[in-house]
């Protein structure tokens, strides 16, 4: 079941969901809440990429994503002028807000794009929208401009929406420290 705005606010009040900073009233819709874009970006370092001469990524046990990311991307802190995402450009970004979905709350969520931006060609994730129960932190966004025009992205702009879903039960890890160590 998807939570409505009223339920989201009740869950926030009860700290079964935490969003920091707390979204303004205008950030809600009936069944979602918008999150905003953080200043931190990671953009591709084409000087490094050009040296690879066709290196093939081999995802698997030996692949170290953090090393890959650090080698081929560089940090960028956005000013108020923002970042112009050119057609076909792809960057890593984060939400300004942090999310906490405690396991015992029986809440998972999905991060999705906003139609106003989707119409321009902006995707905010690459097929991985699920925020599992127990997640805590900033949401990473995989921003890709599939459109024909460059899009200026500015810190603080509503960039994605979060849809909360109630799970049918409590995940096993949600019982850790409560029931898992109980002895018969």
């Amino acid at each position: 079941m998807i939570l409505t705005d009223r339920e989201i606010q009740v869950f926030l009040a009860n700290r079964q969901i935490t969003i920091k900073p707390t979204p303004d009233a205008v950030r809600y819709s009936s069944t979602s809440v918008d999150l905003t874009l953080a200043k931190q970006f990671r953009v591709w370092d084409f000087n490094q990429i050009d040296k690879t001469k066709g290196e093939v990524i081999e995802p698997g046990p030996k692949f170290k994503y953090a090393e890959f990311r650090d080698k081929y991307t560089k940090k960028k802190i956005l000013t108020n002028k923002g970042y112009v995402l050119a057609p076909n450009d792809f960057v890593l970004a984060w939400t300004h807000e942090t999310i906490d979905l405690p396991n015992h709350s029986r809440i998972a969520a999905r991060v999705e794009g906003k139609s106003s931006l989707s119409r321009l060609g902006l995707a905010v994730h690459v097929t991985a929208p699920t925020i599992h129960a127990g997640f805590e932190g900033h949401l990473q966004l995989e921003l890709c401009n599939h459109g024909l025009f460059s899009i200026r992205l500015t810190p603080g702009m509503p960039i994605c929406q979060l849809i909360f879903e109630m799970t049918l039960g409590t995940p096993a890890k949600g019982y850790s420290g409560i029931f898992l160590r109980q002895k018969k």
Partner: protein
Amino acid sequence: MNRVKARIVRGPIKSERIAYITTAGGVCAEVLLSTTQTGSDHVLAVEVARDKNNVLIELPQETSSGDWRVWVNKNQILSE
């Protein structure tokens, strides 16, 4: 459901209209709606909160600037 004052123009297809709503902050919010969600001078929206002078409404669709909810002056509400 409230009728909220708006300027309505033709949309990209026959069944759609573009509505322009002046927000309490003076910004003109643009939203693409079905003809069933608009009249000649208004859009249908739901009140979700109210303060002394303004009403927070939820529109039937997201505005071009990404908002589902906007504050409008209560004078913009034509009927409740």
